[in-house]
């Protein structure tokens, strides 16, 4: 255990401190109509203070809850820190969630003030207004088209800032007073778990948790003031919070907000950040984008790429400094001919460190990015641990492992195989749910619910404890291992394994419409929609071959013997995946029960060749 040597300050206190010590340096850049507008640390604190005053005027009291329903943008963090500076607590809500899910979180969190990004989000809240007895005020960032809305209920963020500024000039002192009283034991942030099983739970994170995680980030990811980060993953998720608020505010590094979620690829190329966090789906997407590009390029370029990958793969996990002269020369050759262009294409050429986390990823995909020279590490964490607790080191990359524990945590593996953690990063409990809290934190140890094992000093995560399947033959299976093996194919976007109490393993597979579509075009196969593509017999054969290739790397019992292709893409609106695109197993098993039974019925269902 290493002691936390960060200043003994809460996140809002640290922001005030930054405004004093490094006030003139740029803290945030927000892209607006193509221009990256900078905000300094002093400006960040000033605007957040105005917001704090404004929020008080809307009736948000100390300890009250402000919910935010928006994509990532500067107003998100201004509102979050403004809430902190006024002594209240922020709750993030996924902007992509349908109205009923939004209402569940808002109601459960007893949110009094809700900050919405635009009319669409406001309409979701208004639709469920009758179920939100705690609601006092709705704030909106982009007020376009909303003149007809009740001004006593809906207020623009701009007006809120102006009101706050005026109030602050008249009677300053609110912020200083709140900061003087704020302690590390206060709750600073509430994060709702994505709810892949059951209803979302609100994890309360104290300022002590946030500070402990900032220390872990600085130590493991070596975050320095010269680093920059593009904030684009949902800020209501702990992973992006860790890299957008906790890390940068304690370490003094810069964050950039792009124009929208749809322009991430362009934004990445423009800012070329030094650090980059992607969830597995992002890496899978980048991987298929490269795959499609290569299919189109064809010929010499494709062959050169394939040879480069084959030549550099064997030493992909060796740190550049430890490579032999021959390996260095080989890499340099392919770097200048192929890999450099690929790194530019995905905007990661200047990345000194890239991470993947939040869900299991296929080792094949990780290996690919390492081969082309992206310094990619796997990290592991949970909402209940305020983010990362395990991370790989670039100097020691072992495929399939998630590295070592952060310095300020004790880790152990229980007899059941479950990973247990005791640390300052362990959360303070679930909001209004003491039973769940008591079963999660036992005698000071957090029960992660993940089965882990330790090999050569490195942790490996096997699967969720409750997801482990037992076949009719009594064998234990890890569904995510099988699923990730299949998802390594660029043609397979989603795979849901069935096997509990069954004679053999089968799977429901969702094809990747883009890559399979491109493949169909090359084959001269006519198709119109996703469904027609999925029903095409030759596509079935293609997936059959991909499944067979995946099976070859799996143990006999874990091999997928039959599969069914889904006729539509899994969707959050249909309750099949969570806002973070995690599959809701129970919902899928129930919804596709017919397809699943057919797989175990007589004959039918595609057998993997």
């Amino acid at each position: 255990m290493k002691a936390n040597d960060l200043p003994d300050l809460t996140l809002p206190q640290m922001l005030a401190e930054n405004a004093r010590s490094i006030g003139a340096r740029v803290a945030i850049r927000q892209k607006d109509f193509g221009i990256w507008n900078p905000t300094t640390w002093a400006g960040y604190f000033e605007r957040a203070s105005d917001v704090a005053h404004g929020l008080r005027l809307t009736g948000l009291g100390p300890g009250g809850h402000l919910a935010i329903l928006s994509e990532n943008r500067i107003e998100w963090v201004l509102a979050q820190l403004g809430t902190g500076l006024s002594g209240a607590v922020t709750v993030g809500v996924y902007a992509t969630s349908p109205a009923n899910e939004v209402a569940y979180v808002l109601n459960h969190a007893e949110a009094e003030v809700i900050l919405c990004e635009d009319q669409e989000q406001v309409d979701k809240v208004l639709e469920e207004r009758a179920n939100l007895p705690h609601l006092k005020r709705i704030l909106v960032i982009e007020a376009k088209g909303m003149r007809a809305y009740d001004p006593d209920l809906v207020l623009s963020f701009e007006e809120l800032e102006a009101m706050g500024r005026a109030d602050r000039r008249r009677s300053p002192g609110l912020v200083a007073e709140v900061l003087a009283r704020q302690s590390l034991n206060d709750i600073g942030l509430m994060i709702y778990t994505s709810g892949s099983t059951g209803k979302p739970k609100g994890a309360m994170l104290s300022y002590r948790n946030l500070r402990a995680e900032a220390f872990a980030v600085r130590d493991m990811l070596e975050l320095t003031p010269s680093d920059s980060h593009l904030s684009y993953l949902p800020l209501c998720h702990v992973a992006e919070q860790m890299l957008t608020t906790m890390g940068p505010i304690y370490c003094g590094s810069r964050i950039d907000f792009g124009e929208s979620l749809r322009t991430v690829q362009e934004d990445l190329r423009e800012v070329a950040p030094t650090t980059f966090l992607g969830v597995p789906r992002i890496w899978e997407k980048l991987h298929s984008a490269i795959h499609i590009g290569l299919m189109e390029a064809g010929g010499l370029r494709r062959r050169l790429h394939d040879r480069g990958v084959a030549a550099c793969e064997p030493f992909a996990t060796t740190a550049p400094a430890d490579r032999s002269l021959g390996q260095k020369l080989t890499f340099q050759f392919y770097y200048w001919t192929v890999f450099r262009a690929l790194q530019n294409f995905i905007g990661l050429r200047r990345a000194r460190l890239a991470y993947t986390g939040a869900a299991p990823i296929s080792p094949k995909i990780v290996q690919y990015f390492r081969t082309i020279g992206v310094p990619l590490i796997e990290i592991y964490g949970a909402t209940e641990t305020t983010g990362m607790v395990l991370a790989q080191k670039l100097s020691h990359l072992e495929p399939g492992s998630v590295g070592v524990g952060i310095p300020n945590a004790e880790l152990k593996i229980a007899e059941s195989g479950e990973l247990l953690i005791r640390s300052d990063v362990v959360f303070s409990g679930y909001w209004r749910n003491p039973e769940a809290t008591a079963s999660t934190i036992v005698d000071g140890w957090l029960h992660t619910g993940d089965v882990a094992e330790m090999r050569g000093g490195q942790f490996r995560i096997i699967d969720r404890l409750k997801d482990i399947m037992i076949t009719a033959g009594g064998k234990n299976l890890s569904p995510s291992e099988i699923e990730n093996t299949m998802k390594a194919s660029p043609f397979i976007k989603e795979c849901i394994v069935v096997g509990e109490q069954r004679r053999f393993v089968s799977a429901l597979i969702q094809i990747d419409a883009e890559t399979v579509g491109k493949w169909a075009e090359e084959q001269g196969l006519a198709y119109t929609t996703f469904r027609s593509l999925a029903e095409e017999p030759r596509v079935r054969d293609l997936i059959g071959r991909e499944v067979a290739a995946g099976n070859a790397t799996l143990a006999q019992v874990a091999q997928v013997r039959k599969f069914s292709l889904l006729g539509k893409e899994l969707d959050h609106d249909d309750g099949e995946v969570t806002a973070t695109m995690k599959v809701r197993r129970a919902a899928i098993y129930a919804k596709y029960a017919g397809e699943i039974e057919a797989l175990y019925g007589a004959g039918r269902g595609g057998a993997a060749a």
Partner: protein
Amino acid sequence: MQAAPSDLILQVENIEVIYNKAVQALRGLSLSVPRGQVVTLLGSNGAGKSTTLKAISGLLGLENGELTAGKILLDGQDISRMKPHELVRAGLFHIMEGRRIFEDLTVEENLTAATFALSGRGLTRTPFDLVYDYFPRLAERRNQRAGYMSGGEQQMLAIGRALIAQPKLILLDEPSLGLSPILVEEIFTIISRINRQTGVSMLLVEQNANVAMAVAHYGYIMETGKIQLNGPTSRLIEDQDVREFYLGHGGGGGEKSYRNIKHYKRRKRWLS
């Protein structure tokens, strides 16, 4: 798709169209027209509907466009490399958007010009009276200069020219454009009658989804160069997204007030 290939008068398979060697307008687009049926292709502005028609009739070259991939089969024969005038003689007639007729010629002269399509096909010439039967108004104006006629009459003439050409397939690009509702109804009634009586197949591009759905047997919905949804029109008109975005039946019913119009679009799902 819904019929054996031999019953398909037109098959478009995975075509890709690029304008000015730079702008990709269509990619991996496929559709088919069963013999004797009316198929409609719907979509918003810029979705690529007219481009699709021009790709079929070989007119892309006029706009610096190019068919870079895929196949187009007319009655089983690959026509993707054929010249427009050869296509007309092969039995394909494209009624372009904006009533393209010879404005300086009379009605009758316009019809005479259309007989070009018959050359070398060994067909007997359709009497012009057939056209005048369908469109009595043209009979009254047979010796008038076409350019002086009303928009509706010009559209009738454009369709009349197609009748003279005796095609196997008519491509119709927005026949309702700029016409009064009553004329739209009249023209579509006649289009439907022509299909029933002569058995000619049609691929109809329309913005006015209501009338197109009423006459077509099958429909494709297209957005940004891709087919999003297809099916028999009887099923399409039940689809919630089609109803909201194409047929103008918003949620809740009743007249929409512009004051309440939303500044965001509900996400389209295109299921079913």
